[in-house]
């Protein structure tokens, strides 16, 4: 801040009731304690108002002199700080705006771009780079470490997410729906029920972590907020498809619920992100592609296509996040493995995928219950499981797991897919 020991403001006819006090306050902000501010005014009531205001704000009013029909007030700035902070503010940085676009990746300017190793609980909801007043309350965020909460890719994925939002009411060709064979419609409705319940967990899990990650790691929080928004749209669109064509919501199995509950119960952000997004949503990419390939109607195909694009973003964000944590945390792989093994042991009594879902996958690929197509459809379903496993292994090795480790982790993944 630039200080000037003798500063003068001309307030014209402005009264203290009409923002004169803002003018005076801002002028005093520019001088040091003990310096004098001179205020020239044409307003008679200022001779009564400014001394009262000065006294209450611990400034010293030296008096008022009438001169050529005007009033000249002199105020000595007091020593109390308006804001209890000695941190300097940034000023003078300019964002690189290209083609009229300010990309979130380019907002790491000055102090806003300083990512602390450990976030301060008392920085609370202040945006990174703001000067936080002493005495602010300590917030109970518990993801405070940079190497747990921040990743370089988050801003880019956030940009992709905000550009990619769509409207489940408008952007799905609902008018193209037509009556389907009842067994086929029932299978689609069962799959939509299953997808919706899984997506509820994919909404609640990041939502839970948003509330626990320190706002200092804004890019991660903002991205997770888009993930929550995506999942809300997915829940909406899957439920709508189940209800739209004369069918309705089908069964939700205890085994599916048990699997999803273990995701909510995770007590570590990185482990939860790994299970939900790398393994769960990763597996869902293949499931959605399968549905898109075999769906008999344009509406279901478009739903699977659009949701898969969103889910791909979630998977890539998580891969980027876990990869960067793995680079600094040598014990992480072991703890992830233990967490996966622990989840598998909790779910060991589970029979596997809800059989109604499994059958629905076959019926979908067969286009109904026609005996001549069921055999090849079963092969498609078996192929799906193999593809899911292969892609899980591929993703795991891409972020630093050995082939053997990746194989083990993938095998331990829940039969519920998510």
């Amino acid at each position, binding site marked *: 801040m630039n200080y000037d020991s003798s500063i003068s403001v001309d307030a014209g006819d402005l009264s203290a009731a009409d923002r004169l006090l803002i003018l005076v306050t801002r002028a005093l902000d520019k001088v040091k304690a003990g310096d004098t501010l001179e205020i020239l005014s044409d307003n008679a009531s200022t001779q009564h108002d400014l001394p009262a*205001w000065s006294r209450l704000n*611990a400034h010293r009013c030296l008096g008022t002199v009438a001169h050529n029909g005007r009033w000249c007030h002199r105020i000595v700035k007091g020593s*109390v700080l308006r804001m209890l902070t000695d941190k300097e503010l940034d000023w003078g940085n300019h964002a690189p705006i290209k083609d009229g676009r300010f990309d979130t990746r380019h907002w790491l300017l000055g102090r806003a771009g300083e990512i602390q190793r450990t976030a301060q609980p008392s920085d609370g909801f202040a945006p990174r780079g703001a000067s936080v007043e002493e005495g602010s309350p300590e917030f109970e965020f518990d993801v405070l470490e940079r190497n747990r909460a921040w990743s370089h890719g988050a801003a880019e994925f956030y940009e992709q997410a905000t550009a990619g939002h769509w409207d489940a009411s408008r952007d799905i060709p609902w008018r193209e729906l037509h009556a389907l064979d009842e067994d086929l419609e029932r299978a689609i409705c069962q799959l939509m029920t299953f997808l919706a319940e899984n997506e509820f967990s994919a909404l609640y899990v990041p939502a839970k972590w948003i509330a626990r990650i320190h706002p200092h790691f804004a890019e991660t929080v903002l991205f997770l907020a888009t993930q929550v928004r995506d999942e809300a749209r997915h829940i909406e669109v899957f439920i709508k498809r189940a209800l739209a064509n004369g069918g309705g919501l089908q069964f939700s199995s205890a085994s599916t619920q048990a699997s999803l509950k273990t995701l909510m119960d995770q007590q570590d952000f990185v482990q939860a992100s790994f299970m939900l997004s790398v393994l769960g949503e990763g597996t869902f990419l293949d499931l959605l592609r399968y549905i898109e390939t075999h769906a008999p109607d344009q509406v279901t195909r478009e739903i699977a296509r659009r949701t898969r694009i969103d889910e791909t973003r979630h998977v890539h964000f998580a891969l980027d996040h876990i990869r960067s944590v793995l680079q600094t945390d040598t014990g992480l792989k072991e703890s992830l493995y233990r967490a996966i093994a622990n989840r598998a042991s909790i779910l060991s009594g589970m029979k596997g995928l809800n059989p109604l879902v499994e059958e629905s996958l076959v019926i979908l690929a067969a286009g109904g219950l026609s005996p001549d197509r069921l055999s090849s459809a079963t092969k498609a379903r078996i192929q799906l499981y193999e593809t899911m496993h292969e892609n899980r292994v591929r993703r795991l090795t891409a972020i630093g797991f050995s082939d053997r480790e990746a194989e083990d982790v993938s095998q331990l993944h829940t039969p519920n897919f998510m």
Partner: protein
Amino acid sequence: MSDVIKVGVVAYDPKVVTIWEGIKEYFTARSIAMDFILFSNYDAQCDALLDGWIDIAWNTNLAYVKIHRRTGGKCGVLAMRDVDVGFTTKVIAGAKTGIQSLLDLKGKRVAFGSRDSGHAAILPLYFLKQNGINPSQDITAIRFDLDVGKHGDTGTSEVEVLNAVIKGEADAGAVGDQYWARALTENLVDNSKVRAVWTSPEYCHCNFTVREKADERRFADWTNALLAMDYNKPAERKILEMEGLKRWVRPQLDGYRALFEAVDELRFFN
């Protein structure tokens, strides 16, 4: 006799408890045992000080003058707020009344705060007299006697004075500059309807009163700890902000002369 210093405080607002719990905590952290005793009015607190139930009374200027009279001037004073020094009363007037000075008040309706408020009733009436206006003959006084017993601490009567002037129910009115500055800051004042036209001479307001001068030395540690409270420290700032000051200061007893004269002139205690 207990070592705990007992400070009397009038509970003019629920926040008084929060403020004084904070102050008590501040003293406890400095190994000075103190407690606060709440009163619903200043008369009861004055009696309690004189009867020895409490050691220190957090008094308004009027309560201090009363103690001073009842002790024959033997009471002492420990400290006051920075805002208790240089206090003034403002005469505010409706913008269209043509009132620009005290003499313009003659023949007008003038609103005052609670009859036991030093700054919004007793002193303004006294200052009017000093300036050649007889309140009982030259003006029509409108009284807002609210929260009597609390010496204008609640500020409710000043709110009524300002509203009466804004609505044109009074041509002018008297308020303390503390309330006036707050009204200006909180955008309660429309300059096209009401403005300040006169500022009284400066006087002093509240102080920590003790029964006798010797108590000033007896409670010196307490006073020094109080004076050390720092607005630039977060925990202490909270307390000071709620109590409406930036720092505690040593007493300036010259600032009570006008009120002594006023209570005599107006025969307030008679």
